[in-house]
């Protein structure tokens, strides 16, 4: 169980205080798949980074399996079983896909078969990729899929994915959603996925709409979709004007 209690995060911009997260509280039970969605700049990624320890909140408390992890480092949280797939993963000169999967798994003798399994789950062929460097020679979509494979190799209890669909082709995306479905079906991990994709949103036990640094709505896909659509149309002055003119 992950519990966020009254999390706030404020930055100072040209002497002005700006709240990125404003008193966010949420609990995520074990084995659930929760999707964070909402407008760009609404605070989704910051909230996910707060959980991993990549961002230190200005105030509030984070409990993981009942333990207060607010003051723990990224490494300590990773070792407790939290993992995070970056929206824009870094590249590494000289480090191969196999090296990265080996580090992620914590098994110095990670077998080719296991590497192959992780890569297949994200739609990549081990023979083509294992010995390639994770550098600029790989496309954005390839690096993104390797990033997700490292999270699978890590086998954490809590997996956070930040827009896993970004830059990935339709075929690989279909394979990826199957992987998320499998993890979810077997309850082998709790997943928090930041996504705007309907197909991923439809997999979720719960959808949380994050906007303006706060949790705006929570509920099932069927409950949340109409609200998102209403908000999207309602907040766009051009569309609103057209509708008004048409009426």
């Amino acid at each position, binding site marked *: 169980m992950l519990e966020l209690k009254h999390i706030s995060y404020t930055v100072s911009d040209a002497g002005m205080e700006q709240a990125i997260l404003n008193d966010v509280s949420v609990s995520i039970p074990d084995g659930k798949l929760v999707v964070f969605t909402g407008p760009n700049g609404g605070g989704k990624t910051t909230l996910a980074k707060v959980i991993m320890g990549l961002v230190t909140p200005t105030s509030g408390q984070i409990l993981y399996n009942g333990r207060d992890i607010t003051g723990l480092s990224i*490494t300590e949280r990773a070792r407790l079983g939290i993992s995070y797939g970056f929206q824009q993963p*870094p590249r590494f000169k*000289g*480090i191969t896909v196999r*090296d990265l999967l080996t*580090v992620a798994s914590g098994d110095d003798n990670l077998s080719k078969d296991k590497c192959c399994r992780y890569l297949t789950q994200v739609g990549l062929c081990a023979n083509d990729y294992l010995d390639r460097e994770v550098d600029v020679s790989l496309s954005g979509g390839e690096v993104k899929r390797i990033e997700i494979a*490292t999270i699978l190799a890590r086998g954490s209890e809590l997996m956070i994915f930040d827009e896993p669909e970004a830059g990935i082709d339709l075929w690989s995306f279909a394979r990826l959603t199957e992987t998320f479905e499998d993890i979810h079906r077997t309850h082998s991990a709790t997943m928090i996925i930041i996504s705007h994709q309907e197909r991923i949103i439809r997999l979720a036990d719960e959808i949380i709409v994050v906007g303006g640094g706060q949790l705006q709505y929570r509920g099932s896909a069927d409950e949340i979709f109409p609200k998102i659509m209403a908000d999207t149309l309602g907040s766009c002055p051009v569309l609103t004007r057209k509708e008004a003119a048409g009426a």
Partner: protein
Amino acid sequence: MINEIDQALLEKIADLVGKPVDALNIRKDGGCEARQSTEHIKIDARTDGKEGIDIRILDGTKGEKCYIPVVISKSDYSEMVYNDFYVGENCDVDIIAGCGIHNSGCDEARHDGVHTFHIGKNSHVRYAEKHYGEGEGTGAKVMNPQTVVYLDEGATIQMETVQIRGIDSTKRYTKIVCGKGAEALITERLLTHGRQLAESDMEIVLDGEDSKGRVISRSVAQDESRQVFRPIVVGNDKCFGHVQCDSIIMGNAKIESVPAITANSTEAQLIHEAAIGKIAGDQLLKLQTLGLTEEEAEDCILKGFLA
């Protein structure tokens, strides 16, 4: 006499364990500890009065290795060695050089070496050169290698130089002259720390039509160390040259990278790239999310970069 310390050095610089059946010359503190020629690779002392050896590789020699490591175990010692290689035509061989210094004294131990290669038509040579220094003394460990290579028509050399820690001062000079259709590939790996200094001058002269030259240099400078790179490619005919220098800078280190390309023919296609930067913060963070500490993440990045 090769003792345990020498043996460990030989393994580090030339992967040499025991006595191989290959051609071999082990130089220790100016003396010849072992010399062994084979049917196709002949090693002899020079006859012009200079220190060093001549290595002659017969035409058509394929799949053979030649080890010529140097070990220095004295303090207050300096040497200047000239080794000449004459590689015949249609050969395919590995030459493993390298120098290890164990300096337990307080005075300087220094090896200056000049290696000159004459590589015959259509021959392929892989040349590895590792430099390594150790010892509990305060005496400096200094190495100044010069490598000059002449590639005949269709000949190639893959030169790999590695110096990871241990050497206090190095001034390296490498020159490769490529004939028609010849190809040179230099990969350089260097890590300096403490107050070490490393200077590397390289010149690839693409003289022949369709010749190719490529330099891939990766270095890490830590602490107060200094590095200077001056790789130069000159294209005198239809040719292709590419210089790529990447450096990671840490602590209070200083790195200067001055690549230069000169085209003396309209058909010369030359590229240079040079980059210096610290380890990217997002790389460290990513590896920390995989359970490594910041120090372990840094090591992992440097190990990969210099692999």
